[in-house]
């Protein structure tokens, strides 16, 4: 706080000779604020929060990172070198191809070595070897595999394309020869939105149910309290499993996606709801709430207009902190095969391929989708921490 708050005016200088000034004296001169001070005192609540948030370095970096990730899901088609479902039958379980810049000390620009395959006579495994004679330059801002942008517009523009006649598997391929990098890029769409949609649902539930309980008290409060207690005391994963097993097999993958988000939200709202309730219980006794009541405002208006804004920032901060657990839950459910189903692809669905120990030993690159999961969760965690600290600008 100290670097924003204005310095208190310096005390009276120690020993000065006794002087009586005959200048006319403006009594408001001491109260004049400098431009900086004025800005600080006039700043609104959200502006103060933003200033505080800005000082939390890791939180700002995380927020920028998340913004970048969310921006990337808008243009997944451009970023991914291949389509989500393209199979390369000749390259099954191909290891990651590194990008090289120099050959024999000579700069050629980004290129990959061509892959040559042969079968190991003993293990009958396919073995890939980088063919150093074959140097294939990558193409940038190019026309490659065609796609439908957001399923609507035809296009073939990519930021980076595989070399003509060559392949570009930066992160290897899976058991059907699909490029891992492209799949991870596309899967971000599902994994990142599921947290947002889920938290929106759970936030709404928490506001409505917690609001009712906190404002009315009495038996409504009792019922909501019991429900939250039951939901909180029961381990989530088994219940999630039971609920997602209950989604009909006949549903389309898109419906399943929404079903899963709803399930995640159904079990997530209690802790937020409790926060809403306890705050409202305290705030409804405040004079301004009573005054609004006397003037005949309806409960919905009092809650929504007068009470909620008082602690909205806290709620948003704690909601942000519970997004990671949602993303992890979706990942876990999909990993167990009870979450999203192909062709809808999330990071969890990709990790479903990495269920056995052979993957760790032989095809380690199938575990790579975990990297974005970890990064996104850490980023949310740091950003949430920063937001929570910033949420109380007068502290």
């Amino acid at each position: 706080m100290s670097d924003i708050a204005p310095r208190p005016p310096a005390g009276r200088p120690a020993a000065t000779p006794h002087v009586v000034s005959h200048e006319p004296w403006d009594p408001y001169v001491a109260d004049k604020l400098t431009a900086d001070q004025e800005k600080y005192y006039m700043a609104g609540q959200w502006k103060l929060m933003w200033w505080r948030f800005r000082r939390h370095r890791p939180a700002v970096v995380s927020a920028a990172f998340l913004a970048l990730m969310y921006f990337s899901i808008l243009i997944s088609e451009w970023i991914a070198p291949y389509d989500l479902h393209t199979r390369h039958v000749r390259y099954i379980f191909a290891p990651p191809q590194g990008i090289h810049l120099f050959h024999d000390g000579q700069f050629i620009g980004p290129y990959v070595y061509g892959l040559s395959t042969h079968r190991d006579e003993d293990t009958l495994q396919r073995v890939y070897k980088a063919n150093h004679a074959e140097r294939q330059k990558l193409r940038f801002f190019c026309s490659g595999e065609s796609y439908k942008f957001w399923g609507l517009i035809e296009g073939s523009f990519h930021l980076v394309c595989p070399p003509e006649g060559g392949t570009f598997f930066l992160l290897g391929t899976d058991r059907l020869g699909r490029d891992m990098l492209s799949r991870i890029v596309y899967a971000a769409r599902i994994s990142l939105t599921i947290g947002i949609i889920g938290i929106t649902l759970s936030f709404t539930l928490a506001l409505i149910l917690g609001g009712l309980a906190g404002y009315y008290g009495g038996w409504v409060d009792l019922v909501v309290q019991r429900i939250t207690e039951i939901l909180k005391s029961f381990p989530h994963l088994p219940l999630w499993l039971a609920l997602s097993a209950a989604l009909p097999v006949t549903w389309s993958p898109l419906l399943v996606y929404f079903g899963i988000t709803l399930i995640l939200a159904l079990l997530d709202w209690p802790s937020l709801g409790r926060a809403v309730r306890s705050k409202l219980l305290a705030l409804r006794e405040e004079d301004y709430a009573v005054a609004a009541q006397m003037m005949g405002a309806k409960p919905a208006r009092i809650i929504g207009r007068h009470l909620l804004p008082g602690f909205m920032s806290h709620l948003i901060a704690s909601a942000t902190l519970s997004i990671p657990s949602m993303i992890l839950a979706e990942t876990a459910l999909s990993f167990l095969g009870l979450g999203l189903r192909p062709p809808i692809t999330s990071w969890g669905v990709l990790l479903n391929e990495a269920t056995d120990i052979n993957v760790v030993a032989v095809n380690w690159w199938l575990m790579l989708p975990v990297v974005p999961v970890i990064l996104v969760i850490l980023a949310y965690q740091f950003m949430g921490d920063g937001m929570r600290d910033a949420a109380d600008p007068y502290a």
Partner: protein
Amino acid sequence: MLHYVARRLLLMIPTLFVISLLVYMIINMPPGDCVTSQIDELLARGDADALARAGELRAIYGLDHSVWYRYFHWLGGIFRWDFGLSCQDTVPVKDLIGERLALTIIMESCTILFIWTVSFVIGVYAATHQYKFGDYAASFIGFLGLAIPNFLLALVLLYVGKVYFGVSIGGLMDPEFIEQPLSWAKFVSVAQHLVIPTIVIGTSGTAGMIRRLRANLLDELQKQYVVTGRAKGLSPMKLLVKYPLRHAINPFVADIGHLLPEVVSGSVIVSVVLSLPTMGPMLLTALKTQDVNLAATFLLFVAVLTVIGMLISDLLLAALDPRIRFGAAGEK
């Protein structure tokens, strides 16, 4: 105190009743039942009289009755220690779950002990060395533990355990001890196999615990009485252990309520990955095949365990913290 315990025990009954009802109905929600898939399989094999057997099977499992009838039948059976038939091989559920439940409880207790020990040591260290390297390292590891999905950590550790320490893959004991009476060697083997699941399930819980202990202890260490104590020449060790630590340790007990559901959730998924003979894998298959009695019984046991765990945590808390003890006494 006795009054309080009795009241809590009575409150458990409606809670468990609601949970059991909820769970039973959820499992029954999808169309079809466990017989459907069995019959499909028989038909696919070309078994002509499969359809005729369907009716027979349904009668055995009571599927010709309504859901409510089945629910109350199952619920009534519980009081006679009879959990109905499992759909898989027409075996009583009772025979399937006994050992798995015991192993689950062992594993979860170990995990909680692990979480306590690790977060106690690290939390106290981080609080007393605030803003030093150790503090940052601890919180970084804590964050990482939160962010890495359990199942993947389990896989990697399993691989490391196999390659570098020679622990056999999967299960909770070496194959030769299965079905053997308890012996020292078996005990050692089980202990060896418990290491990986305990670490994996524990990591996420540990992170939160460390942060809470650190924050609490930091708050406490800044209080006046600590300064006074230091001014009066109390030894640093005593100044830490005697009062601030006792104060800050509250969440350890109070948080069993949060910790227990988390540990149970973690143990389910980790057991599936490591194919441990605990209830996780069986619960998963039971849910997938709509083996209602088996799944519901498992889930009910989970609920009972959690609720009892929370009761114990509340009682311990009352014993530990006089404010809570007298607060509860004042309430009634």
